[in-house]
């Protein structure tokens, strides 16, 4: 592998990692702050993609679709938390696993009923639909750079939100000691609702942004779900910083693994996870 190739593969790995980060940021927040396992997270990604398809067809413009879709997803997440998840914070993990597994079935069927089972395309905005020439025969799609930028902005945004704002402070307090925070008069229920809605919204927007590249098809949710879990485990539950590092790590391992070690490429990421856990059973970063 020569230098140019290496650089390009590095770019590929980082880009994939950043998309993963967008997906897993929400998951790790929900885990860390509310202690809720959500197996249906992949479904939100899928729903986001299908929303992008419908809305961009409706509005004729992907950007508008993403904004509207994000709003809809946040509302959906809020409603879901209010109706269902709220009652499960004190329940055992098993119950949460079961609940969210049941939700997967329901979302799958709803998706089939609302949108059908075909493969669909989401139109890329013309302004982003071109590629930068990297070598004499390889070009890099600008849209992917756009995606990576959005994910980076998001990472920065989340960091600022959590460490610099009052809301972030309340969120951290709630994660640290739920009862005490409530006793101090902070509306912890509201916080939980916000965090959950945020998590759902993030996953959904990830699906919307990725849709023009990945196309929209039924099994897209389950494919990403497992990868999300691996990232959260490696990064450390509840740690957004950990999610970022782990996402990039997984992105790079996946990319270079496919090229250098194709025999074990499928298992490679899990092996990395196993090694990380040997040394740090709680993941790379604390909350």
């Amino acid at each position, binding site marked *: 592998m020569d230098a140019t*190739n290496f650089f390009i593969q590095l770019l590929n790995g980082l880009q994939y990692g950043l998309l993963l980060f967008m997906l897993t940021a929400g998951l790790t927040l929900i885990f860390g702050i509310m202690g809720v396992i959500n197996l249906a997270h992949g479904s939100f990604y899928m729903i986001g993609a299908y929303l992008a398809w419908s809305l961009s067809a409706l509005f004729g413009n992907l950007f508008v679709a993403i904004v509207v879709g994000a709003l809809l997803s946040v509302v959906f997440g809020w409603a879901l938390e209010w109706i269902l998840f709220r009652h499960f914070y004190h329940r055992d993990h098993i119950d949460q696993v079961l609940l969210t597994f049941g939700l997967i079935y329901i979302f799958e069927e709803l998706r089939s009923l609302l949108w059908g089972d075909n493969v669909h395309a989401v139109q890329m905005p013309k302004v982003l639909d071109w590629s930068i020439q990297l070598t004499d*025969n390889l070009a*890099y799609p600008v849209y*992917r750079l756009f995606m990576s930028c959005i994910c980076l902005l998001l990472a920065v945004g989340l960091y600022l939100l959590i460490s610099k704002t009052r809301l972030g402070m309340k969120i951290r307090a709630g994660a640290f000691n739920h009862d005490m925070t409530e006793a101090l008069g902070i509306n912890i229920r509201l916080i939980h609702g916000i965090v959950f809605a945020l998590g759902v919204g993030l996953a959904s927007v990830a699906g919307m942004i990725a849709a023009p590249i990945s*196309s929209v098809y039924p099994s897209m949710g389950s494919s990403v779900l497992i990868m999300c879990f691996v990232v959260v485990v490696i990064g450390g539950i509840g740690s957004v910083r950990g999610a970022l590092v782990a996402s990039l790590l997984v992105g790079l391992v996946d990319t270079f693994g*496919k090229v250098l070690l194709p025999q074990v490429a*499928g298992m490679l990421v899990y092996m990395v996870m196993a090694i990380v856990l040997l040394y740090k059973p709680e993941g790379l970063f604390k909350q």
Partner: protein
Amino acid sequence: MNSRRFVLTGGAALAASVSSSLLLPRWANAQGSKLRVGLMLPFTGTFAQPGIAVENGFRLALAQNGDKLGGREFELVKVDDESNPAKAIENATRLVQRDKVDVLIGSVHSGVQMGIHKVARETGVLNIIPNAGVHVATRAQCAPNVFRTSFTNAQPTLALGKVMVDRGHKKAVWITWNYAAGEEAFEGFEKGFTEAGGTIVKKFGLPFPNVEFQALLTEIASLKPDAVACFFAGGGAAKFLRDYAAAGLNKTIPLYGSGFLTEGVLDAAGDAAEGVLTTLHYSDSLDTPRNKQFRLEYAKTFKAQPDVYAVQGYDAGLLLIQGANAVKGDFSNKKSLYAAMENATIDSPRGKWTMSKSHNPVQDMYLRQVVNKDNKVIRIAQKAVADPGTGCRMG
């Protein structure tokens, strides 16, 4: 006794007995009146579209025959196999043992087919495969009661190699998923391509169902082959087409593939698929009276456009009808039934085809090119392509 307890347990007992009756065989009608046709297809999940298309095609064939098989009426029994191989044996057994079907049409997914195949071999029930291309079903594990109306995974790509070499592309890279269908598609490509004088520069595989192609596309670019040949299907195929074009590779390295690369995904792939050449045993745009007539009827009946899966299901119906006619609906006359099906010529929308000795279609492979989101047939890539049927001990 506590009345609430009574109500609850009584209610539970009632519900249980009512629902139990739903699990019992629902047909108490005497032997000899209606034939039972079992459809074991995916009606949910990733393969729901092909599953529904197969069923529609099958029903159309039977409807055109007056909804009779060899003069007898029939009823359909359906099972959703969910494309889940772990439940395949259970689902197939239910159709054969509980619902006592006379013929089992199924399935789409190769893993599920393995399960069905075991049941078919053990019980001897007539099984027509309307899609699954898994090799063993018509090779080492072939059976007199198992027929296929679709293809083996190697067939489409068998015809691809020579096409590429004839167009001057002698050094190619192959890429697919690392699963059975991908391996078997490679087998056909390797044979066809190397026999025509081509060299396979590198063989890439990525874990199924991983769709992050960037890494391997970058590798392909650095290798600078004459062309790329591949096998992908469904959502993954759409993404591969788009990623390939977005990376600008389509300008310098032509892309070829098994026809499934461009089946059902051209709307999703958009302009990215323009000019891609594929080989398959059918194309929507096949310009023959037979195909046009079929497509018209299908669209009228189901308010949707047929695809290769619908054609395969349709042919399964045609095959079954021929067999049933030969034995006048008496499916217990297995010898004549199988003989009739073995010697059948199917007047299919894809063109006429016959059964090979191992019960797989001997059929023409078409060379298609994507023009304006349509698979235009350029010519016949190879006539009468037959699967070698290695290891089959019949005939």
